């Protein structure tokens, strides 16, 4: 089961005034399943709900930072410049993208040891945090599909901010392709069927908008 799915920045953003250190802006975050504080030892269980929410947010931010440094070190090692891809070439962007997996030790930041599978496209990374028994081959494949669909549906290769303003499309996508964090063994026909459903759900909203305008 996937614990969370993140979309976050992985490049220094000096032009935007963000410190070029290890900061990573979280653009989308979806945590799956119950709060791991339920299993945690006494200290975490005694926290108030606000404190627990704060702790969850901090943990996710920690993962984003770790993935950011993994991505930048990996890019440095490969020595290559990041390929710029224009909108409309989402499939190519995913193909050219770098993938990797980072080990999140027990305690850093989640209670048990997890793996963060990441797919970095230009200045953003899509990250899946998987449990030890999860099938990483399947996770990698699912991440590529999700990445491609995110790029397409939210027009991430362009300059807009739809990832922030239209996140319900991403939610609808995840509820089908990664329901409650469950990785699914989908052959191309199953996947196509789900993608069509998700697209139809988005279109119906757009259709509604057009009607009222």
């Amino acid at each position: 089961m996937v614990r969370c799915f993140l979309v976050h920045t992985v490049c220094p953003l000096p032009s935007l005034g963000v410190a070029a250190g290890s900061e990573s802006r979280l653009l989308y975050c979806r945590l799956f399943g119950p709060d791991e504080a339920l299993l945690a030892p006494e200290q975490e269980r005694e926290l108030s709900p606000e404190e627990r929410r704060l702790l969850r947010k901090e943990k996710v931010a920690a993962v984003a930072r770790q993935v950011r440094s993994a991505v930048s070190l990996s890019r440095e090692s490969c020595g290559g410049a990041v390929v710029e891809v224009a909108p409309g070439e989402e499939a190519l962007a995913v193909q050219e993208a770098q993938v990797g997996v980072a080990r999140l030790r027990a305690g850093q930041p989640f209670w048990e040891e997890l793996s963060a599978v990441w797919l970095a496209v230009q200045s953003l990374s899509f990250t899946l945090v998987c449990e030890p028994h999860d099938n990483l081959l399947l996770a990698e494949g699912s991440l590529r599909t999700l990445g491609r669909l995110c790029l397409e549906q939210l027009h991430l290769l362009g300059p807009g901010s739809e990832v922030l303003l239209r996140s319900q499309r991403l939610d609808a996508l995840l509820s089908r392709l990664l329901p409650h964090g469950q990785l699914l063994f989908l052959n191309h026909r199953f996947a196509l069927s789900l993608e069509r459903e998700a697209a139809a759900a988005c279109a119906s909203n757009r259709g509604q908008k057009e009607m009222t305008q």
Partner: protein
Amino acid sequence: MYSQGSEGLLKQAREIQEPELQKFYSRLTKAFQAKELGHEAIDSLQRLRLILFATKYTRKLPAELQRKILQLLSSPVEHLQVLSSAVLRETLPLPGQELNCIEEGAGQLNSHAAALLLSQAASRADLSSLCAHLLRTLESRQSEALGHSLTHVLPVLNSILTHSPECLTEDHVILLSKKFVDWLRYASITQGGGATSGGFFAGPRSRQPAVVAELDGTVSGDFFTVLCVGQGFTDDQWMNVYSFSILRHWLLAYHSASGGNSTADADDRSEVDGSVVSMVSATSSSSRVLPPKERLREKAFQYCQRLIEQCDRKAQKKSDADLQKACLVEAVCILDCVCVEDPSLVYRTFPCIKALFGRLSSDLSFARVLLPIAQFYLNHGEMAAVDCDVVWKLVFGRFPAELFNDPFLAHELLRFLRLNLESLQQGVPDYTHFFPNLLKLLAWDSPALVDDFVDLLPSLVTAGTAVELLHTLLDLPCLSATLVLQLRSTCLPISEPSGRGLLSLDAFRSPSFRGLFLFLLRGEAGSGDTIDRLSTVHELLAEAADWPRVVHCAQVVPVLLHIYFNTVVKVADEQLFAHLILVILERSSLLLKVPRYVREIHRVFSCHLLKLCKRLPSLVVDQSRELLEFAGATANVYSREEVYTHVVWVLGEYLSVSCDSRCSVRLITSCFEALEAVLFEITSSSPPDGTACPAPRVITTLMSALAKLASRSHDLIPRVSLFLSKLRTVPRGGSVSWCSDEEDLASIVTRGEELWSLLKAPGVAQSVLSPPPHIAAARWHGDTNTAAPLQLRALTNLTLSQ
């Protein structure tokens, strides 16, 4: 991608002021009172979600607004469900907002409502009642078509399993086991969505629903699995997909728990009458009389075998080929799980796994599939009395050597090692000989894998290969550069001049240096600790010192060296300790010149040289010849200052009779003379061109060492006193050619004076500079007769009582 606009939006959402926020809340509350909610409501909800998401501190919604949003969870419009669930997950539940209010609202929980309940569950009891509710709805819809509306039940249960498997009662487990058997094994094999067989001209009566197809296009001949395709899918085929996706986790949660207790018995039983047990389970007709959990195990077994057969077919699409690999991994893992629970199944499973291994072992693109197969061999190979050597040769011998640049394979291989360390140490003890291969993974991608090696390195340190391991660790940056060259050499044609790395690439390809690089690229230990022409290698790879991969690698080596030394002292004998000191002395000048690398390594060396000598002081006398040779070479003061300082200190401290009875007056005298000569030399002339003045610590250490040695052999005292008194004549505030800083000079002179005055009373000097062990290791605080606090307390009591 991420633009100014996005940054601005996030900032705005985070910094929205309280009054504006309250106005927004009241606007929303009014908007949600309308009967029909249009796109404006959706936009507003989205904005609310962004405001709640953007800050890590919790914002509480007004109760009325929150209740309205809660009602939207059961709206027929999907976007409203999605958004209301997202908004409510970002804030805290209302006091008294219980499961009941949603349950009463709709008989059936939709996926997004379930997500909300999951995220807000505050205790295991909440999770249990959610489970119970979902399973009730599942049971009640048995006879009707399931529809997509209930496909979220299995994923929700899966996420609860991770955190508390005990939320499902035994009845629930049995109910679900029966359902899994139905969905996995008995799903329909006709295509859903109205697709039919027969061509355009076939009449309506002869049109039959089309049968599903395999991935290569042929018609399916057996039961439905995730690798079957059709135009559309029926509901139970969807449940087939979901069930298989959750199957492994289910078996791990509910089968190994019970299996864990009984495997011990099962092992004993199978040894005695294994043949009887296997015959019973070999016949599948007996599956009808099996209890539900055992039946599920049997069906899982059949499903996995069918998947493995299906993966032999060539898929028409690339994404399906990738899915086949993932299915192979999953199938092997499930079979492993099932065999761990019921060892009698091993005899039925092994032929299949062995055949799979034979089919895939020559194709490196299936390396990630071969790892679970290796796990299977490790778990069950002994029981099936199968020779596993060929598996280990592949996993430890070929994979790291040829696939070191696959990040996923490296991660999974190292995880396999970590999780199975004990079993490997028992079953495959020779795996430690493959450390040169394993280190290739680290040399290629140090930042990602150093964590794993911090855990694994201690197990790779054995007395037999310790010295070779030390040399390999020190040359890890060279290995990193060599791997880069190896890859480049295969990518670039020989005749094409490469802009970067020309010299080293040529050297790599040249036959005269082939042997050197082949040694670095060796896969197994045992062919020699290191090579003679190491300095040649360093020269050839000099231009690699600024390659990012090499620099990253150089940064992790000091950490690993600390772990190495801390571990090796536990397995080493005196001979090995001596050998290690020699390696330290030798290698301190034989390192690849990566910026800061040499300095860091010297620091590690110095630290551990001290620790080794402290642990075994007789080493110093033992290795006195080599240590003196090192300490007597003035050049070392300038080129290996840190290590030199510590060698001198160690000589001064431990070259005495109390540490080793073999220490003779002659030895002390020759050591004294060697150090004296160096001290004279560095304090009488300026340092050679290009080098800085030696740090004051070197000079004071030399002086102290000389004083210590003199205190043990009093004939030497006049000689050292002569030097120290000459030092006193250095004018204060003046400068000398060998010391550039006034303050440093002053502290050196002060030290010299202290030692000079100390040596005027040889007896005192001896007890201060060479104290007997029981004094040197005093624990004044622990000794009740001398503990200072005790004395003070006694004195205070005496004086105050008066």
